[in-house]
């Protein structure tokens, strides 16, 4: 497999009135073509900021790249001009977001928005936009591909006539218009009901397989990541603390934070296992803890953790952990 995406020592800061928030602190991640990676973590861990970084969607200011590189097919996205980025958005990397309603214009019919998106992709590719009729035909095709029945009727409707699940499918269909190699999904099912979430996750799963898409799924829900991704990266306070094949992480997390996170999830399959909370709360990124950012909440923390930031090291094949005390 070829490396599609490589994030190397990426650091991002937000400059605000209160000072500099160190939002992402040395992210290293790799994603091969056709691979599925889940990024999981709690509020404020930086997972959404990371996802937006791939398309340079973080508003700047306040966002400021401190260092690092995000290479897509070997090309550093952080050094691209806006025009080159536009060509990349949608065509190479497409994104779907948490709240489908706010990404559709309520005044325009679905057909118009999809045609515009398709034709926009054509111009971004440097060609002439195809005629509306052709764009509409492709739109109908894409809607069928995301499992929406009666695409013609759907194209004629307006967003408010659709359910949340249908809107998210429309947005996924639009994301497919540029035939991207990587789909970045930021909490794509968080706003949906659980039965509809199951449908959308099954859809994404099917698309990834059928089209050979690489998937980066951002979620706060370990269950969702566990259902959809072969590999998972656990983030805490702007760092990746553990990366592992999903079943191995769930079965035996090595980083104390990953252990705490998994222990906190109530599991229907194991009602006798009482979820355990984690003491303390997420640290301020304005004055992040010294050394390991997890040390104030960590049961294993030692003096070394307070002073020395642990680097992520490979403990087992395919598994790396950023912890001084973790053992395979």
């Amino acid at each position, binding site marked *: 497999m070829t490396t599609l995406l490589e994030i190397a020592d990426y650091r991002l800061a937000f400059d605000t009135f209160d000072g500099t928030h160190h939002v992402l602190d040395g992210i290293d991640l790799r994603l091969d073509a056709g691979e599925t990676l889940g990024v999981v973590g*709690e509020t404020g861990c930086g997972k959404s900021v990371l996802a937006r970084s791939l398309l340079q969607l973080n508003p700047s200011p306040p966002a400021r790249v401190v260092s690092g590189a995000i290479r897509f097919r070997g090309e550093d996205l952080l050094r691209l001009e806006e025009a080159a980025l536009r060509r990349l958005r949608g065509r190479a990397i497409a994104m779907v977001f948490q709240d489908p309603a706010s990404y559709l214009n309520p005044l325009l019919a679905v057909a118009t928005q999809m045609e515009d998106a398709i034709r926009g992709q054509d111009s971004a590719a440097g060609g002439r936009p195809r005629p509306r009729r052709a764009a509409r035909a492709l739109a109908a095709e894409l809607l069928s591909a995301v499992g929406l029945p009666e695409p013609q009727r759907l194209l004629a409707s307006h967003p408010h006539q659709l*359910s949340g699940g249908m809107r998210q499918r429309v947005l996924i269909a639009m994301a497919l218009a540029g035939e991207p190699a990587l789909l970045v999904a930021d909490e794509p099912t968080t706003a949906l*009901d659980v039965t509809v979430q*199951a449908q959308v996750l099954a859809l994404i799963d099917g698309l990834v397989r059928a089209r050979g898409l690489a998937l980066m799924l951002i979620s706060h829900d370990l269950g969702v990541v*566990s259902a959809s991704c072969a590999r998972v990266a656990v983030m805490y306070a702007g760092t990746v603390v553990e990366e592992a094949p999903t079943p191995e992480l*769930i079965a035996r997390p090595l980083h104390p934070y990953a252990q705490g996170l998994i222990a906190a*999830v*109530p599991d*229907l399959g194991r*009602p006798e296992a009482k979820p355990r909370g984690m003491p303390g709360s997420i640290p301020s990124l304005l004055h992040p803890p010294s050394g390991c950012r997890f040390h104030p909440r960590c049961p294993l923390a030692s003096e070394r953790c307070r002073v020395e930031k642990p680097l992520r090291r490979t403990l087992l094949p395919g598994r790396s952990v950023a912890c001084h005390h973790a053992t395979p």
Partner: protein
Amino acid sequence: MTAPLPEAPLLEARGLAKTYLTPRTAFRPPGRVAAVAGVDVTLEAGASLGLVGESGCGKSTLARLLLRLVPLSGGSIRFAGQDITDLSERAMRRLRRRMQLIHQNPSAALDPRLTVMSAVAEPLRIQGIARGRALHDRVAALLAEVGLPGDFLHRHPHELSGGQKQRVCIARALALEPQLVVLDEPTSALDVSVQAQILDFLGALRRQRGLSYLFISHNLAVVRQVCERVAVMYLGRIVEEGPAAEVLERPQHPYTRALLASVPRLGVAGVAAAAPGDPPNPADPPPGCAFHPRCLVAEPACRTTAPALNFARGEDHRVACHVAARRGLPEMTETT
């Protein structure tokens, strides 16, 4: 005031209904939306009942009906033996001491301009329970009880984390020493590690103070952890009801089964899309059983006749399904 009879349930509602009128617009005649359509609820003192269902199923409306926060369209409510169906607004204000509500989103449930002190003191002031030094001490004690340090008294909500705000809301509800607490998705806005803390705390609180909970959630695993009984709602009706372990381990209604199958499990790749389509629009409900368009075992009768909530497995487990009532559904397999 009449003392409640010891055997009477704390809360007993019969045939609760709420119908909203949608306003007439240029394109549409006025319509009727039945958000809650004839629901019975019984909650024993000290018990906890979980109410689960997806968005728009009417669970939040039902909670507000039970607390008399929205006007009833039908039915009756008895609280601690007293009929409160037609109680005046003024009388209800006094009764509020005994029934409290915890909101889903603690950030929105706290007035952004009030300090923690003012927020927790407000119910005590309104009900005339304490003032001055006594009020201050009482609030400080409540904060200590929910695990917040005393220097939080003068902070504003925006200076607190989500979990801390929810603790403030809990302290505020506890201030009046209620018997009934309705919790409307109390942890769905919180991170999972905080959720576990808060759920643990809520459980301990109920045991120590003998509280009764009506616990609304879309998260079946959370309900399983907190509640002894559970009721599943779909489109304004209860479709299945019984002991939590029984309902969630041996579900009888196809909708309950679909819900359970849809929940992603840790360490299991993929989820089963067990109910096709979307939850129906309450303004345009399907005829017969509301679930039949998404039901994989629907029969002709399901399209015409709404099933009643009848006993299924044993005395305690009721289900509203023609198919399950007649022949029962096969045992669920653990292949999801």
